[in-house]
């Protein structure tokens, strides 16, 4: 099946048009955040303070890239394990985040929140950091530079490949895909 081209940021309609198992090519601007940045963002939310980025409609990519060599936009940049962000994800969705990209299993609370807030969880191919780096055309730090690889980066992506794992209808590719091929 041909991958669907999608444009970031996403509307509710965009989210509802995608189902678990769909392959997509993401274009536009996405943001990075992993463990340390999530912790800081959620601390601000809990204190009722404003966030350094507006999450409305946005993609958050769980990645901590290698340092860019001279002439590169970014170093190797594949997804990290998403489960470590589970505790923060419902609050991120509540602030308007529409999609997150990582790899690996999510908690039931995250799957429920994706349905409640109309959001998507996608996986990029874990360990394909060199390939994925070629789809990132521009990278700049927009918050928490002191976190180094864990800082929040603004990425401009072209045809960034990902697969929908958990959709807003409660479907789960990890559960369904394995069922199809188990014997």
């Amino acid at each position, binding site marked *: 099946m041909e991958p669907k081209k999608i444009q970031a940021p996403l509307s509710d309609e965009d989210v509802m048009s995608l189902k678990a198992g769909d392959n997509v090519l993401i274009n536009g601007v996405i943001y990075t955040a992993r463990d340390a940045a999530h912790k800081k963002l959620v601390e601000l939310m809990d204190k009722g303070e404003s966030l350094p980025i507006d999450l409305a409609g946005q993609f958050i990519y769980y990645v*901590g890239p*290698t*340092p860019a060599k001279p002439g590169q936009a970014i170093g190797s940049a594949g997804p*990290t394990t998403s489960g470590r962000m589970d505790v923060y994800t419902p609050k991120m969705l509540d602030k308007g985040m529409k999609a997150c990209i990582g*790899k690996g299993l999510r908690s039931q609370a995250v799957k429920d929140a994706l349905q409640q807030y109309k959001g998507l969880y996608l996986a990029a191919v*874990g360990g394909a950091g060199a390939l994925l780096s070629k789809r990132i055309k521009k990278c700049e730090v927009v918050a928490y530079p002191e976190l180094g690889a864990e800082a929040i980066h603004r990425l401009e992506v072209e045809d960034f490949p990902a*697969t929908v794992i958990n959709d807003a209808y409660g479907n789960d*590719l990890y559960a369904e*895909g394995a069922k199809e091929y188990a014997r």
Partner: protein
Amino acid sequence: MREIAASTISDHVAEMCEEANIYLGEEEFQALKDALETEESPTGREVLKQLIENVEIARNEQIPICQDTGFAVFFVEWGQELHLTGGTLEEAINAGVRRGYDEGYLRKSIVDDPLYDRKNTGDNTPAVIYTDIVPGDKVKIAFAPKGGGSENMSTVKMLKPSDGEDGLVDFVVNHVKAAGPNPCPPIVVGVGIGGTFDKVAVQAKKALFRPVGTPHADSRFAALEKKILNKINDLGVGPQGFGGRTFALAVHIETYPSHIASMAAAVNINCHACRHLERTL
């Protein structure tokens, strides 16, 4: 007595850090290409194609295969007739790691205090170093950058001797099943059997240093590796957990003699980027 300078060890270690993170070994690369031939799931094949392209891009453009350039793990076999000059082995290896990760634009992923401060050491040191003293006047240095995602999906269990082969197989397969997509399948599964609580984990790690698909020298354990591999692949988890036939590329077992009361078992998982290399000086 033959002498070797600490700076020589550091130079080799620095090169090995860069090389292992950029060039996937031939056996490991071939295993991905073989998997593409046999994978039935279209999505699984698409993943494998991306992984093969990724290895080629990494080689051609000197980009790390994965952004997680790992904890630097070393197994050193030091010949007892070899004398190290100008520093300690630990300092020499860490100096090499420091330089390799800096000059190679590799990610620094180590924090000093594991519980409270978690402040990055900034140079990917310290390394994890296992040293064996062996006969001879040479040193063999084996290096693997070990990614955190797959390391997190690893475990140790003190099985009972009466659990036997079936108990061991169930332990490994159930553990790998629970790990599912998290350790970046297709995975390589290192299994340690025997020894103490600590020794068995080291054996499982050592198993990951074997070129992918090289069977155990003992035919009974080679058959057991194959049996566990088939059971793991029958789970249907497939590449990246999207469903398919290739959940694991290989199962490698390393054993050690056991206490009469114990049968320790450990599972150490590696992702598809099973990066390791060795040099003898």
